[in-house]
C-alpha cells in the first residue's frame, strides 16, 4: 500500500563512514599523533634500561619494564658534581609555588575588586600601565629587580621569588578578577553597601564566597605558570634553592659523564607531572582560564 505522502520519511540515515567524515577523522587522528607521540616516547624511554635504549627505536615498547630510571631521576641523578636527583628541586618548587600562588592571588583579587567596585580617580591609568606592562619583555626588568630585591634584603630568598611571581602574575590575574567582579550583579554590591558592609566586609563576606569559579581558574593558571617558570628561578634564586625546571635542565644538559637518556626522560616526565595532573583534572576550567586570560572582556 502506498501512503498518501510518498518519498523519504523518518530520520535521515547517517553513517560515520561517509567520505567527508573519513577525511575529518583521519586528519584529526594524524594530528593527534603529532601531539601524543612525544609523551609516548618519553614514557617508553623512561621505562627501558640504557642497554635497551641503545638497541631499540624510540617508539618501541620496553621489552623489560624497569622503574630504575625513575628512582634514579628522583634521588640520585647528577647535576654537575652533585648527585641528588630531582627531589630537592621538587621540594624547592613546592616551597616556591605554594606561597607564590597564595600571595599573588590574594593581592590580585583585592586589586581586581578595588578596580571593579571601588574605582577612584586614576585607577584606570594604573590598570592600563599594568596591562601594557605585561607586554614588556621581562629582560628589561630583570636587573633592576635584582637591585630592588637586594636593597630589600630578600635577593636569593624565597620571599624575593614570591614577590617576583606576584609582580609578574599581577596583570593577568588582576584582569581576570576585575572582569569577574564586574560581571557579578552590581545590585548585589549596592545591597551590601546599604546593609552597611564596607570595603573589606563586602570583599570577604559577599564577593569571595561567590568567587570559587574564578579562584579555581586563577589557581590553575598560577600553579602551572609558577611551576613551569625557569627564568625567574635561575635569576632570583641561589643554586641550592633552584626550582625543579632549572634542576631538570642542569641534569639533562649536564656535560659530565655518559648521557643516561632513560633517566633524563624520567626526570622530564616527573617535572611535567604536576602541571599535567592539574591539566587533566581541571579540563574545561583550564581552558576557561586560558580563554579568560587571553580574550579580554
Amino acid at each position: 500500500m502506498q501512503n498518501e505522502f510518498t518519498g523519504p520519511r523518518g530520520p535521515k540515515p547517517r553513517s560515520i563512514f561517509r567520505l567527508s567524515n573519513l577525511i575529518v577523522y583521519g586528519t584529526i587522528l594524524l594530528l593527534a599523533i603529532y601531539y601524543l607521540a612525544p609523551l609516548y616516547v618519553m614514557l617508553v624511554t623512561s621505562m627501558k634500561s640504557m642497554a635497551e635504549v641503545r638497541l631499540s627505536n624510540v617508539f618501541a615498547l620496553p621489552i623489560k619494564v624497569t622503574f630504575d630510571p625513575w628512582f634514579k631521576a628522583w634521588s640520585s641523578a647528577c647535576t654537575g658534581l652533585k648527585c641528588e636527583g630531582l627531589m630537592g628541586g621538587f621540594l624547592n618548587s613546592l616551597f616556591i609555588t605554594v606561597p607564590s600562588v597564595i600571595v599573588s592571588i590574594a593581592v590580585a583579587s583585592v586589586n581586581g575588586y578595588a578596580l571593579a567596585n571601588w574605582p577612584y580617580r586614576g585607577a584606570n591609568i594604573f590598570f592600563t600601565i599594568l596591562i601594557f606592562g605585561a607586554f614588556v619583555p621581562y629582560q628589561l626588568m630583570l636587573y633592576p629587580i635584582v637591585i630592588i630585591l637586594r636593597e630589600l634584603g630578600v635577593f636569593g630568598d624565597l620571599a624575593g621569588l614570591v614577590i617576583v611571581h606576584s609582580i609578574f602574575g599581577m596583570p593577568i590575574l588582576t584582569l581576570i578578577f576585575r572582569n569577574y567582579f564586574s560581571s557579578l550583579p552590581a545590585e548585589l554590591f549596592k545591597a551590601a553597601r546599604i546593609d552597611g558592609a564596607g570595603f573589606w566586609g563586602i570583599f570577604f563576606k559577599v564577593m569571595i564566597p561567590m568567587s570559587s569559579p574564578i579562584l579555581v581558574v586563577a589557581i590553575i593558571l598560577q600553579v602551572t605558570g609558577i611551576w613551569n617558570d625557569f627564568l625567574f628561578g635561575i635569576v632570583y634564586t641561589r643554586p641550592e634553592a633552584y626550582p625543579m625546571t632549572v634542576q631538570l635542565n642542569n641534569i639533562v644538559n649536564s656535560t659530565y659523564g655518559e648521557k643516561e637518556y632513560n633517566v633524563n626522560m624520567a626526570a622530564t616526565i616527573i617535572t611535567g607531572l604536576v602541571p599535567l595532573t592539574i591539566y587533566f583534572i581541571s579540563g574545561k576550567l583550564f581552558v576557561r582560564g586560558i580563554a579568560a586570560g587571553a580574550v579580554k572582556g
Partner: protein
Amino acid sequence: MESVSIKNLDLKFGSVEVLKNLNLDVHQGEFIVLLGSSGCGKSTLLNCIAGLLDVSDGQIFINGNNVTWQEPSRRGIGMVFQSYALYPQMSVAGNLSFGLRNAGVAKAEIRKKVARAAEILQIEALLNRKPSELSGGQRQRVAIGRALVRDVDVFLFDEPLSNLDAKLRTELRVEIKRLHQQLKNTMIYVTHDQIEAMTLADRIAIMREGKIMQLASPTEIYGKPVNKYVADFIGSPAMNFLAGRIENGAFHFGGGVISLDKYDFAEGMAGDREAWIGIRPEHVIVAEGLSKADLTVKVRADIVEPMGADTLLWCVMDGQSFRIRLDGQFVIKEGDMIDVGFSSNAVSLFDKFSEILL
C-alpha cells in the same frame, strides 16, 4: 517636615547630564512612583537618594538631615532591587540579618526582628533555605524583608517586579500596597510600568531626560497631563493625536470641526493657535452617546482586535492611524462603517510647538 527632600540635584557622568536641577519633596508616609522610559534618569535618581551614586551638585535631605555625603547604610533607607540581589551563599535568615550584623546589633534583637519581618511577609518557613532554592516571588519577598528588618523610614524600590511573570507581578503589587498600608513608611518606587504606577502611587513623578515633567496624583496625570509627552506616555492603548488649528473657540482639522465650548482651558491658554488635539481611545463615543458629541465622523473599521473585556478598533482619521476602544460586547467586523463622536470635555489640547497643555 518632608520625609525626603531633593534640592537642585545635578548629576553628570563626564559631560553627560543625567539629572538636571531636579527638585522633589516626598511627604511622610507617601508612596511616590518615579515613572519613565529607560534612560530618563529615574533609577539614577533613586541611586542618588540611596547614596550609591555621588551627586555632582545639590542636596538630599532625609527626615530633615542633610545626607548628601552620608554613607548609604546610615541614611535610614532600605532598598529592594530588580534582580533581588540576595547574597547567594547566605540563608534567607542570613540575608535578612546581614545589615543588622554589620551594625553590631545584639543577637537576641536580630532574632526578634528577623522573626517579625518573616511573619509580615509570610516567609517563616523559608528562613533556613538558600536563595537558589526559592521561587522568584519568594526571593522578592526576602529582598523586601531585608529592607523591613532594618526599621528604616524610607523604602526604595528599583523596578522590583520587572523580573517576575505577569501573574506574580499582580500578586506582589497588591502585597506591596498592603505593606504600605500596614507600615505607613515613605516609599519611593521606580518603574517603567504605568499600571504599577497608577495602582500603587499616591503621586506619580513622570520623568524624562533627567527632569520631572509632572508630579501629581494618578487621576490628575491621566486626566490633565501637562504636555503631549505625558499624555502619550500614560494610558494604554496610547492617546490619539491629530494636528489642527484652534480658531474662534473651535478646533479645525482634516476630519471636521469640534466646538470647544465645554473644554476647560488653562488660565490664559485660550486663543487661536496651531494645536494638537489628544483623544483617548476609551473616550471616543459610539452608539447611544452620539447625540451629545461635538463632532461625529463616519469611519471604516480596518482592524478589529477583540481582547475580551474590550475590543480595540483601528481606523483611519484625517489620514492618521486612529485607535478606538469599544466595549467587548460591541458587535463589529472588519470593513464595517461606524459613526464615532468626540466630546470637547473629554479631549486634551496641546500647543503645536511647545506641546504644553492648553
